[in-house]
């Protein structure tokens, strides 16, 4: 095929993780006549879904109800979730769990052969399905392997999408670099679904894999689609100091304790008590992530945390669970702690501290996964429907990527059957413009600024100004630093000019994305003068429904993000004080 010719498909999915693969299968089963492409900067089985540990929530048992799952989710979101979206989510969750079970997901089982469920933070009932503590790994590989049986799904493995091609106000595909030969090509489609996951890498200390740089979010953002609620970045209370490796919430669901340096279960001092020896839903260690992360910082302020070479930490104590339970329910935790900390959690408590884990915000979509740009859809962590609002409950995200991945796939399939094919002339022009832009800004960049320096400064600015606790002065400083970094990025230099597997080009593109995402996070946080869920402003410590029971929408402008607001959909659960 000539270098100027486009690859042509009906549906193009950017990202081959859980949401992207679920979308691909949903599209393939909607119509076998559609040509579906999955493009990813990595092979699908490398996607970050693979790292999810604890489980996936759905109402599977008689002691549970859809309303309870909805209420827990909305309450956990600090009432910023859209309640119609949450209702769709909890309704479709059980079917998605059964579907992936039929596809072979090795769910852990009860003795009678039913899929087992475990307790999780912020949930009032045991409703989290799990595959030991490698749930994301098993879901991802099940989806990937299942996707292989559909001839209509083709893959572009190790391609990096650099921009959306938009024609007459409608998305018509992407320009992307084939990392194996450096070619920039157009891949056209009548519908495009972005499933590229979150952007935890804008922070220095994160559970997120290296690839979580928000590239898909910026694709949409730069094409005029708003990013919703970006100020809400979730800290997970239990990551390993230094590496940031996740110690799953299931460790606490199975009964693990959090203890300060005096061996005291400190969560009882923050309204989460009383202390009990076995886990009680929504109490103590099963409180929600935003609150537990703040409790850690309070303990730090009181001088009751440990201090190690990688900073402050507390103990996650699993010893009382015993070797048998740990090996059966938390084998990965044991493996990780042995490998990366060099201790055995059967005999010693695990050092943990809060660590950036999840991007609640994302590409603004409706409940059909549609964005405001015609033909463009998004699902999974890259998207913000929003079911997570200001704070996601643990084990809702794996479910979300199935429910909304499938919705996106079906909606895109319907749209692709009706939409016109992109025209080749404008496409050729668009992709040659993009080629020139890339050459100027990245491929032949010969300035003096180094990628690693800009990235490090961004990390520092985000941690200092936009971390667990925020205030105006800190956020203004962070926003200012990010503006300076944006200018410095224009002067970067790359040493690598080789077209084949040029990972320096990838790093530059990723940094370019992260700078945009970081600015949206910080600007949203600065303008939201209240505390809600993951946004904790020391200068505005209360939730302010009168001013901020609203979604923020960040729009891309040459001068940085412009923030607008949109109403939250309330159906049956009027906002109340969020107390556990």
């Amino acid at each position: 095929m000539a270098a100027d010719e486009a690859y042509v498909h009906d549906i193009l999915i950017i990202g081959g993780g859980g949401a992207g693969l679920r979308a691909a299968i949903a599209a393939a089963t909607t119509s076998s006549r559609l040509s579906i492409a999955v493009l990813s900067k990595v092979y699908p089985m490398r996607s970050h879904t693979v790292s999810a540990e604890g489980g996936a929530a759905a109402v599977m048992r008689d002691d549970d109800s859809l309303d309870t799952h909805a209420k827990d989710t909305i309450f956990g979101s600090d009432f910023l979730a859209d309640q119609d979206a949450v209702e769709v989510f909890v309704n479709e969750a059980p079917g998605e769990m059964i579907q992936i079970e039929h596809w072979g997901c090795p769910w852990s089982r009860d003795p009678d052969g039913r899929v087992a469920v475990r307790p999780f933070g912020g949930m009032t009932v045991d409703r989290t399905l799990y595959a030991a503590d490698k749930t994301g790994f098993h879901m991802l590989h099940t989806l990937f392997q299942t996707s292989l049986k559909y001839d209509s799904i083709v893959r572009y493995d190790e391609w990096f999408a650099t921009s959306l091609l938009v024609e007459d106000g409608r998305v018509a595909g992407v320009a992307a670099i084939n990392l194996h030969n450096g070619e920039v090509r157009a891949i056209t489609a009548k519908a495009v679904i972005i499933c590229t996951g979150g952007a935890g890498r804008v922070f220095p200390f994160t559970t997120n894999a290296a690839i979580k740089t928000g590239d898909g979010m910026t694709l949409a953002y730069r094409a005029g689609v708003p990013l919703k609620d970006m100020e809400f970045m979730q800290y997970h209370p239990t990551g390993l100091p230094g590496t940031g490796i996740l110690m799953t919430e299931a460790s606490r669901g199975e009964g693990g304790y959090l203890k300060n340096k005096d061996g005291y279960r400190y969560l009882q001092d923050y309204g989460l008590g009383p202390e009990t020896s076995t886990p009680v839903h929504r109490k103590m260690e099963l409180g929600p992530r935003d609150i537990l992360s703040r409790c850690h910082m309070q303990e730090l302020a009181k001088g009751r945390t440990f201090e190690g070479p990688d900073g402050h930490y507390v103990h996650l104590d699993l010893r009382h669970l015993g070797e048998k339970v740990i090996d059966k329910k938390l084998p990965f935790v044991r493996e990780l702690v042995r490998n990366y900390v060099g201790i055995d959690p059967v005999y010693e408590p695990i050092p943990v501290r809060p660590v950036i884990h999840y991007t609640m915000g994302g590409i603004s979509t409706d409940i059909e996964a549609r964005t405001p740009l015609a033909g463009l859809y998004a699902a999974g962590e890259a998207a913000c429907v929003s079911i997570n609002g200001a704070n996601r409950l643990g084990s809702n995200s794996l479910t979300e990527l199935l429910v909304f991945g499938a919705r996106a796939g079906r909606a895109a399939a319907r749209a692709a059957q009706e939409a016109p094919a992109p025209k080749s002339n404008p496409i050729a022009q668009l992709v040659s413009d993009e080629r020139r832009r890339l050459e100027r800004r990245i491929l032949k960049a010969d300035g003096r600024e180094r990628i690693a320096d800009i990235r490090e400064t961004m990390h520092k600015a985000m941690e200092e100004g936009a971390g667990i606790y925020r205030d105006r002065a800190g956020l203004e400083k962070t926003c200012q630093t990010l503006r300076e970094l944006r200018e410095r990025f224009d002067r970067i230099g790359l040493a690598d000019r080789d077209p084949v597997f040029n990972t320096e080009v990838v790093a530059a593109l990723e940094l370019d994305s992260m700078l945009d995402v970081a600015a949206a996070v910080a600007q949203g946080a600065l303008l939201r003068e209240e505390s809600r869920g993951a946004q904790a402003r020391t200068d505005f410590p209360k939730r302010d429904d009168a001013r901020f029971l609203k979604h923020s929408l960040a729009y891309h402008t040459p001068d940085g993000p412009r923030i607008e607001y949109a109403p939250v959909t309330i159906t049956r659960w009027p906002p109340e004080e969020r107390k556990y």
Partner: protein
Amino acid sequence: MPDETITLEVTRYRPGHDREPRSQSFTVPYRKDWVVLDALNYIKDRIDGTLSYRWSCRMGVCGSCGMMVNGVPKLTCAAFLRDFQPGPVRVEPLANFPVVRDLVISLDDFMEKLLRVKPWIIRQTEKPVAEGEHRQTPAQLEVFKQFSMCINCMLCYAACPVYAMHPGFIGPAAAALAYRYNLDSRDEGYRFREPVLNDSVGVWECTFIGECSVVCPKGVDPAAAIQRSKVAGAQDWAKSMLMPWRGRS
């Protein structure tokens, strides 16, 4: 920065430009909590931005960062510098694969083989979602669970002497995954995978050296999967001719 350092000898190679691979030495700070991947990231960020390698999760589950470390296939995110002191540490691309560039190998052959073993649930009739889950007891799960733990990191192929000699060999990971689905109580696809496993470059080539199981970072034991598939292949040949859809509860 600590004063102590360690030297890495890293393979550089660009097929099409370089006649042959060469080794380049880099001296990096030594930290006892650093893995080989941390050292490579240091090189990339601070010394030579042109070094090419794959990585992502840095917690041993995405399977991206497999390389030869002092001649042994390893996940570099789980290979601590302290275990190779005082160095130098030799870092090479995974053996037995074509090199794309430096430490990046081509996965094309594995991806094709993975497809060939049909690694998905095959049933004569699909159960509708409305009818609920398949019941599967913990014991039935246990039968195949170990073989479902493969992260496709390719260390087993790099260690496999049969694959080195016969690139047509289906190989440890793909064979283990075929076996995983064959053992799953929900699956009825044995007869479709069996020909792939039993053809001339299939499991019969494996001489049970077991290097694959030694290097597997996830305890999958592909060697056992291959040996047991051979036994099953011999026993079930007649049965599969008589009962194409193996009856299962």
